[in-house]
C-alpha cells in the first residue's frame, strides 16, 4: 500500500451522518484523499471555535469516500455530530503513519477500548479474517462490532456494566500468549495494560496512541510521547508505535 500524500481541503461534502448509539456517530464524506489503516485526518466542522481541528482516524476508505467513527467527547466532536448530509467539513490529511500491516502475520489480536475500535475496521479489511480475533471493550452498549463479524472474524466483547459479553475490561478477556501479533487502540491506561501483558508474553504489539494535537503534521511538537528513543510526535512519528518502545506513564 503506498502512503497517500496529505492535503488540506475545505468544503468537503458530507454524504451521511449515522447515529450508531448513545454518543457514537459515523460520518462519511466525499473525498478521494484516502488513507491507510491507522492514519487520521484533522477534521473541522466549524468556523472559529474551537480554534483547532480535531484528529479523527480513518474508519473506512473507498476510492471516493472516507468514513469516520467518532464519539462525542467535547465541543469539537459535538459540532461534528451536528453535521448533516450536504454539509461540509475541512480536512487535513491523511496524516501520520498507520499500522505496520506488513508485520501482521499469524494469529492476530485486535484489542480495543471504546472508540479505539474506530481505526480497526479499515485495518481488518486488509487482514485474512480467519487469523483475527477482535477483543473489544465498552463501557456499556457495544457499537461497530457487527462489521468485524461480517468479515468473518471472531469477535469477543467485554462491557463494564455487563450489558453485553463478559462483564469487565477487555484486557481481562485477552490472553496475549495465544497470538503472534497484537494491535491495540483505546484509552491510554488500557493500552498500557495491553502493552504490559504483551511484553510479559513476548507478543509484539502495535499501539495507536492518543494525544492532544495542534498542527497534526509534525511541526509544533505539542503531541509528544515519551519513548525509549526519546520524545516522538504522535501525529507524525505515529500515531501507531511499537508498544515496547513507548514509555507508558502510570
Amino acid at each position: 500500500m503506498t502512503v497517500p500524500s496529505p492535503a488540506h481541503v475545505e468544503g468537503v461534502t458530507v454524504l451521511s451522518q449515522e447515529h450508531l448509539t448513545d454518543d457514537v456517530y459515523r460520518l462519511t464524506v466525499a473525498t478521494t484523499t484516502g488513507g491507510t489503516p491507522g492514519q487520521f485526518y484533522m477534521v473541522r466542522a466549524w468556523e472559529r471555535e474551537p480554534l483547532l481541528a480535531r484528529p479523527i482516524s480513518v474508519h473506512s476508505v473507498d476510492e471516493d469516500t472516507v468514513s469516520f467513527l467518532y464519539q462525542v467527547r467535547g465541543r469539537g466532536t459535538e459540532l461534528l455530530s451536528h453535521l448533516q448530509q450536504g454539509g461540509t467539513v475541512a480536512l487535513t490529511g491523511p496524516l501520520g503513519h498507520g499500522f505496520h500491516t506488513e508485520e501482521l502475520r499469524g494469529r492476530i489480536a485486535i484489542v480495543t477500548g471504546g472508540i479505539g475500535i474506530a481505526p480497526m475496521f479499515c485495518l481488518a479489511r486488509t487482514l485474512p479474517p480467519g487469523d483475527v480475533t477482535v477483543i473489544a471493550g465498552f463501557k456499556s452498549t457495544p457499537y461497530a462490532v457487527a462489521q468485524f463479524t461480517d468479515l468473518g472474524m471472531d469477535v469477543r466483547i467485554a462491557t463494564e456494566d455487563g450489558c453485553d459479553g463478559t462483564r469487565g475490561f477487555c484486557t481481562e478477556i485477552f490472553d496475549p500468549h495465544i497470538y503472534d501479533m497484537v494491535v491495540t487502540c483505546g484509552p491510554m491506561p488500557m493500552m498500557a495494560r495491553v502493552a504490559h501483558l504483551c511484553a510479559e508474553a513476548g507478543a509484539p504489539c502495535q499501539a495507536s496512541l492518543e494525544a492532544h494535537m495542534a498542527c497534526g503534521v509534525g511541526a509544533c511538537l505539542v503531541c509528544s510521547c515519551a519513548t525509549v528513543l526519546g520524545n516522538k510526535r504522535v501525529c507524525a512519528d505515529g500515531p501507531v508505535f511499537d508498544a515496547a518502545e513507548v514509555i507508558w506513564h502510570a
Partner: protein
Amino acid sequence: MLETTLCGVTLKNPVIAASGTFGFGAEYSEFFDVSRLGGICTKGLTLHPREGNPGLRVWETPAGMMNSVGLQNPGIPVFLERELPRMRTLGTAIIANVGGGDLEEYVEGVRLVSGADGVDIIELNISCPNVREGGMAFGIKCDVAASVVAAVRPVCAKPLMVKLSPNAEDITAMAVACERAGADAVSLVNTFKALAIDIHTRKAVFDNVTAGLSGPCIKPIALRMVWEVANAVHIPVVGIGGIATWQDALEFIMAGATAVQVGTATFVKPTAMLDIVDGLERYRADEHLTSLATVCNILGTVPKL
C-alpha cells in the same frame, strides 16, 4: 510587489512562519509551496539538545491556545548537520531562532549558527516562557536582555533580530535597550504567560503550571506593543501575535511592522500564510501602492500619556 528588505536580507514578501509552529519547514512543504513564503523561522534551537517539557503540551482557550512545548530541539550541531541543508533547498529566507538556558549557551549557540552558510538572520529568543532554567528571565528585565544581546553581538556575523516577550516589564524600553546593545531588528511578541486549571483534578493543566498563550485572542495586545515599539526604535520591527488574515497582517504593518510572523493560524489552516500573501498583494494592487512601505507606520507616534 511585496518584496521586503529586513536587515539587508531580501524577502519575497513580509510573511514569515513563526518559530516553533513550522518545524524546520519540511512538514508543511507537503501541503503547499513554502518557497512562496517570505521566510521561515526554525523551532527554537539551543546549543545542547533538549527534550522539552513533560506532561500535556497544548490547551485551547477562547480564540487561542496555550502551549508548553519548551525548547524541544535536537541541538544546534545536529540542526546544522541534518536540518539546515534541507531547509536551504526550500527556496525562502531562513531565520534561525536561538534560545539558551544561560548566557554561555546563548553565546556558543549564536557563534555556531552564525558560522553556518544558509542562515540569513538569527532570531535571538530571549522570551520563551516555557523554559524553567532561564529563557524567560532574560525576557523580563531590560538590562538582563541587553546583556544577552551585547554578549552575542560580537560573535554574530549575521543580522541579529531579538524576539521580545510580551511579559517584559516594559517592552518598549526593552526594545530600545536591545537596539542600543546591538540588535539589528526586533520581533514581537512571543507568547503571553498564562494559566489554565483543571477544576476536576484541582491542578494546573500544565506540569509547569503556566504556559504560553498564542492565537487571535492576543492580537489586540500584540498590535499595541508593536505600535509602541515601532515608535521607539530605529531598527525594523517584525510583528507577531494572532495574525490570521491579511487584514490582521496589514494592521501590524500599519502599526509599524516591516514584516510579520504567523504561528497559530497555520494550525487552523495550513495554507493561511499563502492566503495572507495573496491578500496583501491584492490590497497593494487595488490601492495602487508600489510597496507596502507606503502604509507602514502610518498611525504616527505614541501620544505622551
